[in-house]
């Protein structure tokens, strides 16, 4: 009896290790293990779309329906993909909506002064980087929790913009249709399908790929991940942890500036001080639906991209699918919770 136990345990172990080996060898298993969170986000998008499409196939299979979607989604994409860096580094940025508003104002101020649109755009990016540097410096060198600091700074910057604008909006109808304006937000039809592709959607795609390469294959992105995973070890290995942390806020500031300049152009060159305010919770929801965990160290750019598509699809899609408007918040919450559960299955935090 005493030697029955190892004999009985052996086949079980053998099977278990054989299964493990099979799993290790399977290309798909490895692919899923490396990209599980991004794939979950993609599945969530497909599932939400499928539910809507089943309810109203005529609408959802018509390319023209997506014109408005493709027109509005880039703002969330710019913001969400860049926030991945902030969250992965172990920080939080709640100040980006105010930077969106402020940057839009700077952009329009320059355009009204008849600065060419592209030049104004580049200056606006520099402005975003500068504000990001300021926010980052306050958080990192002031040693303040980024949650509290950026919450305060969001109100502060928004308030400052309101004080300067005194409730006025800025518009520059003359700049609509200029070369720079068409290059940034112009539209073109995809092969006679009726589907209008806005240029800022193409830029958002390019931005996503840029973020992906920066995050995964550039020294900066890898160090952001290491700082978020174990900042003490990063410091011991000679990484300038403070500089990396300030860097993610600069990056977030640049993305907010792009969004600000794009938003005013989407509104035919009209800026109002609170533009950007609506994106705070949307962009953060998209980030987490996209599969970047809250604890830092790891994250996914493509997941964030799919998350941005999902959260943009839900409010308009729900109405299109025949749900009464009252349903949208409920569906929104349901999708967020369900994707969180799905992400949980792709692994808890490794320590």
């Amino acid at each position, binding site marked *: 009896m005493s030697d029955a136990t190892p004999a009985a345990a052996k086949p079980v172990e053998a099977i278990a290790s054989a299964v493990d080996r099979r799993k*290790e060898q399977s290309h798909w298993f490895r692919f899923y293990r490396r990209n599980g969170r991004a794939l979950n986000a993609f599945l969530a998008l497909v599932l939400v779309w499928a539910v809507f499409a089943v309810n109203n196939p005529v609408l959802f299979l018509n390319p023209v329906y997506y014109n408005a979607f493709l027109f509005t989604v880039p703002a969330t994409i710019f913001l969400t993909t860049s926030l991945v860096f902030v969250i992965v580094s172990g920080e939080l940025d709640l100040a980006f909506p105010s930077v969106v508003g402020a940057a839009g104002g700077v952009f329009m101020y320059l355009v009204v002064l008849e600065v060419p649109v592209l030049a104004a755009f580049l200056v606006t990016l520099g402005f975003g980087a500068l504000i990001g540097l300021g926010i980052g410096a306050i958080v990192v060198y002031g040693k303040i929790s980024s949650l509290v600091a950026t919450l305060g700074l969001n109100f502060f910057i928004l308030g400052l913009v309101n004080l300067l604008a005194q409730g006025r909006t800025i518009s520059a109808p003359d700049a609509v249709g200029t070369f720079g304006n068409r290059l940034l937000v112009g539209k073109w039809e995809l092969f006679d399908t009726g589907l209008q592709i806005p240029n800022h959607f193409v830029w958002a795609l390019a931005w996503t790929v840029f973020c992906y*390469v920066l995050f995964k*294959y*550039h*020294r*900066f992105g*890898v*160090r952001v*991940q*290491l700082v978020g*995973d*174990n900042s*003490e*070890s*990063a410091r*011991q*290995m*000679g*990484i300038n942890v403070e500089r990396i942390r300030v860097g993610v806020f600069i990056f977030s500031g640049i993305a907010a500036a792009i969004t600000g300049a794009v938003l005013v152009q989407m509104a035919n060159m009209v800026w109002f001080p609170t533009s950007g305010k609506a994106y705070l919770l949307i962009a953060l929801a998209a980030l987490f639906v996209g599969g970047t965990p809250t604890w830092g*160290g*790891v994250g996914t750019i493509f997941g964030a991209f799919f998350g941005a598509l999902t959260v943009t699809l839900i409010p308009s899609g729900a109405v299109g699918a025949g749900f009464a408007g009252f349903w949208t918040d409920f569906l929104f919450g349901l999708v967020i919770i369900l994707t969180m559960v799905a992400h949980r299955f792709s692994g808890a*935090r*490794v*320590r």
Partner: protein
Amino acid sequence: MSGQDAPIVELRNIVKRFGNVEALSGVSMTVRKGEVLGLLGDNGAGKSTLVKTLAGVHDPDEGEIIVKGNARKPWTPLAARDAGIETVFQDRALAPQHSIVTNIFMGREITNAVGLIRVQRQIDEANRLMREIGFTSKVFNPESTVGHLSGGERQGVAIARALYNQADVIVLDEPTTALSLTETQKVFRFVEAVKASGRTVVFIGHNIYHVWEIADRFFVIDRGREAFEGEKTAFTGADHLIEMMHQLAETGKADTDTLVNAA
């Protein structure tokens, strides 16, 4: 002086104070090229201050640090690394959610001119370093996540990382503390491989049996001073060393006359 016995690191009369507390009161220690030096001492003996001094974390208040014949001043972590001394701290300083290769190149990534990482070169280099210390397995490869490795394997990652950068001296701070028997054996294999590559190892330990098994020579510190040192051959066995450590703890002095005088 033969090549084997040539000192690679010499600490001379090192004094280190923290406020009114003198953690090290004039310690002189020589590390010889190619040896495994076991550094022993009770809690509070000054062991970790000495390790941090070797690593450059502490710049001594008095005394000299001589590496390969040159006195080094100022003494910083960067200076220690430049002098070829790599320290693997007790907490191993790893990022558990990331791959072995990312951990090995943490802070010293191989990149092109615009900062993009040369992925394949890093993997090849990681493979080479891992093979060098016999740190290979069918179960994991350079792209495996560190958090899925056992304690001894994680020590292997930290040692492989220390080898990158052509370190001559590897300081291991309690590498086997909190490890099981099999995991400890793994770490010993890594240390043997590091020694076989001609490098020098300083092995700090709590468990005297562990240090006995791996070290060629022992340096025992007590209350901030050297208590005694000796070649492995000067002791009749691990129990002899333990007996002397007990005497030291009880009377503050070990009977060095019992040491066998090796020629």
